[in-house]
């Protein structure tokens, strides 16, 4: 394998493959190294992708047979107590028509595999079943290639793009991103539950091609800073629940038991009733936010996607940030190779492009949000309880005056949280996203 490439990309996920497509289009000799037996085989996510960002890489992605599960026409948000839940949703026919594929669900094992095939068609070389265990550096510290676990497994490269995901022992070992602390990630587990497509369409009130996403907060994460989801696929439903890893370690709750409890929740159980679980996966969410983003470019290397901690927790955006960063990294590489200068200074046109784009602007806007969630346990225990109490009182018709019910609710708020505390939470929450 002792070969030489213009660019070696570590990881065949959305960031790495986006970059590979752009580089191959520009005629640059590119190798993508993937540790799984095929691209996508190690990858998993809630499962939404964003058409806008994919079209920036492959404008004709639909014609190319992109394995879309369902086009999302409705987004729901639930706030759950243990046995009840508040629900709001927004459905818009524009997302079934003019803005079709704005958001759609995918199975990442299928999607990433297809995406990698497109890069291959453009001329990139995809090498699977190969782990990058170290980086080659010259005397000045400039990255000059990668070391794989294969025999004679060194590959020389003018530039290396690290796109190996949030769980990156490589980034930690080489110091390009400090090893993560448990509070910087959420651990999510997901079950894919098979159901006939007509049943899914009936339960969610959608037509054959369309689907619904549901983001869930509340007591389902047992007081921990966490989130859960219910996403519709063609013949299955993805159910996932996750929470901050540091809080998992503290509460000693088991992720798979939390998932089981979630599946039994009265808002969730009817949607998956009769379904057959077909897969169970686990993955981190790069929840640390803006403050945990590493230096994006250095001498001979760049870092993109989840490896760079690009994740917008509030808007559940990650795959699009990966694609956009992969594209910008590729453009910086093309410019650098043209100048024959792959120094940090030359490659930092990537950092500049990122700062000026929605990727870092959004991450910066919400920089306080991960800390707000992490430090406000009331969002995941007392508040859902109080919301349940209030809704129950107001919806129960029992001859008690509304004025008295209002007083009961206020008493409950005062007892469980306190009015001043509630105002403080609202204020801090607003400040963290404004």
């Amino acid at each position, binding site marked *: 394998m002792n070969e030489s490439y213009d660019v070696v990309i570590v990881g065949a996920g959305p960031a790495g493959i986006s970059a590979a497509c752009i580089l191959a289009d520009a005629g640059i000799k590119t190798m993508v190294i993937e540790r799984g037996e095929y691209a996508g085989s190690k990858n998993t996510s809630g499962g939404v992708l964003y058409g806008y960002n994919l079209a920036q890489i492959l404008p004709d992605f639909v014609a190319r047979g992109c394995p879309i599960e369902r086009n999302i026409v409705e987004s729901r948000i639930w706030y759950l107590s243990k046995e009840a839940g508040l629900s709001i949703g927004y459905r818009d026919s524009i997302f079934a028509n003019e803005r079709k594929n704005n958001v759609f669900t995918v*199975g990442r094992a*299928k999607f990433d595999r297809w995406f990698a095939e497109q890069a291959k068609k453009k001329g990139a070389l995809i090498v699977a079943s190969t782990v990058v265990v170290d980086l080659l550096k010259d005397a000045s510290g400039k990255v000059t290639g990668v070391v794989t676990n294969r025999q004679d497994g060194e590959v020389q490269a003018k530039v290396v793009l690290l796109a190996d995901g949030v*769980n990156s022992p490589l980034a930690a070992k080489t110091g390009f991103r400090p090893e993560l602390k448990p509070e910087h990630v959420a651990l999510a587990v997901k079950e894919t539950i098979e159901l006939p497509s007509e049943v899914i369409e009936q339960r969610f009130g959608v037509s054959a091609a369309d689907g619904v996403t549901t983001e869930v907060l509340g007591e389902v994460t047992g007081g921990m800073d966490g989130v859960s989801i219910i996403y519709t696929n063609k013949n299955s439903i993805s159910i996932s629940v996750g929470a901050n890893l540091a809080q998992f370690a503290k509460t000693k709750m*088991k*992720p798979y038991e939390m998932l089981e409890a979630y599946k039994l929740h009265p808002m969730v159980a009817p949607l998956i009733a009769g379904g057959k*679980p077909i*897969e169970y*996966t686990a993955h981190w969410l790069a929840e640390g936010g803006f403050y945990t983003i590493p230096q994006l470019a250095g001498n001979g290397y760049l870092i993109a996607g989840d490896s760079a901690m690009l994740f917008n927790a509030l808007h559940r955006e990650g795959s699009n940030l990966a694609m956009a960063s992969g594209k910008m990294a590729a453009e910086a590489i093309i410019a650098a190779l043209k100048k024959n200068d792959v120094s940090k200074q030359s490659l930092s046109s990537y950092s500049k492009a990122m700062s000026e784009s929605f990727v870092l602007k959004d991450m910066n806007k919400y920089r306080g949000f991960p800390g707000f969630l992490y430090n406000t346990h009331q969002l995941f225990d007392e508040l859902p309880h109080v919301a349940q109490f209030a809704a129950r009182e107001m919806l129960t018709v029992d001859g008690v005056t509304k004025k008295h019910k209002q007083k009961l609710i206020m008493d409950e708020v005062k007892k469980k949280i306190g009015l001043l505390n509630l105002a403080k939470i609202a204020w801090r929450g607003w400040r963290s996203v404004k």
Partner: protein
Amino acid sequence: MTMKIEDKLFLDRFKVDEESHLKIIDGEKCKKCESQACLFLCPAYVYRPEGDRIAINHEGCLECGSCRIGCPDLNIEWKFPKGGYGISHKFG
């Protein structure tokens, strides 16, 4: 009826490497460990108490990395399985 973790892992496809990609660096530290976080936070129940030591069932590892950074003593040597080994997602 709730599903046990063993049944969940049974849904997944693994290509098992005989050699474990996970290793406890110093077993003595585990004996004194109060948190025993690995027993709880691992989503695949890879770490299990066995007498006064902790056994590793690396075959069912979902490769999330949580044990590596969640161990309060950072006492776990964590590598990716060899290329092509470990879990292979079907849906993802």
